[in-house]
């Protein structure tokens, strides 16, 4: 019984202890000049879809849920966000070379069509991130138009 108490106390201390270690937040309130909406024509509807379904992990501005204040949740989140931004960062889209911009747009359409993105684990926690067939088509059409406009520019 004493041993059990000791174990419970140390687990409790550990849980409280890790609450003090928080990763830096992925927050930036200004829209950068390299944001994709500044590079290609993006309607408000598409912009809203991207913000809801993609920007949490693929931009410099995450909309954090309340439970992100609990550890180790935010550590896991920070890892997802880091990896997501590495792959594609909508806030820095304009800094990619023209060739990469076209590649990334292709990747966006493919991931949506193949249902790879948004991640199913993400959709589980963010109900409004799940895209309807209509919304998927809207995004894919937007990607196509964006590709065409960039191809003409270059």
């Amino acid at each position, binding site marked *: 019984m004493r041993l059990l108490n000791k174990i419970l106390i140390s687990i409790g201390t550990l849980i409280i202890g890790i609450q003090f270690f928080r990763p830096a937040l992925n927050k930036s309130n200004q829209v950068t000049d390299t944001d994709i909406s500044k590079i290609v024509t993006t309607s408000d509807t598409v912009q809203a879809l991207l913000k809801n379904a993609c920007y949490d992990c693929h931009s410099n501005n995450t909309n954090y849920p309340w439970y992100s204040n609990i550890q180790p949740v935010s550590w896991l989140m920070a890892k997802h966000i880091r990896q997501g931004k590495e792959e594609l960062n909508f806030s820095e889209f304009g800094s*990619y070379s023209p060739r990469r911009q076209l590649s990334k747009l292709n990747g966006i359409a493919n991931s949506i069509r193949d249902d790879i993105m948004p991640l199913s684990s993400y959709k589980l926690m963010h109900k409004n991130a799940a895209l309807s067939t209509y919304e998927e088509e809207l995004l894919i059409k937007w990607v196509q138009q964006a590709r065409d406009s960039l191809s003409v520019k270059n």
Partner: protein
Amino acid sequence: MKSIFIGLVIAVSTLTASTAKSTQSTVSIKEFVSSYLQMKNAFTQDNSTGAADAGEKMEVAFKNFDKSVLTPVQKKTFEDVEADAKEHAEHIGKNSGNIAHQREHFVLLSKDIYDLVKTFGAGQVLYKDFDPMANNGKGAFWLSETKDIKNPYMGKAMLTSGSIKEEIK
């Protein structure tokens, strides 16, 4: 005395001519072409693991490539292609078992390698083949070392679908 002088002039001029030639031929993209073709051939066999191996090989080739031999203009083209192609090679390398995803990257990688070949020369004859049905009906091309059509996007299901669009010498 005069003949020695002439001989010296000839010797010097042939020497400079040969060094000029050798610096020109040091830009070799052989490693990229060979890993690309290895990847292409794996895809024609529906061999996802084989394609992944070739992807890793191409990644290494990019890491080892000596850019110091490039002229500023060549360097610009190369780095533009490199930033994109490296990523495709990496994804193909990491996604063994998911051949559909690997092939999506292969569409774009083919364009990158085509541009490299057009800029630097492949050192061998290549054919640019096109299949209008590949890439979800949007059409896609690939490079091949043989005249026979072997389609890396369709694999065994429709191996001979497509046609030669260009012979690159």
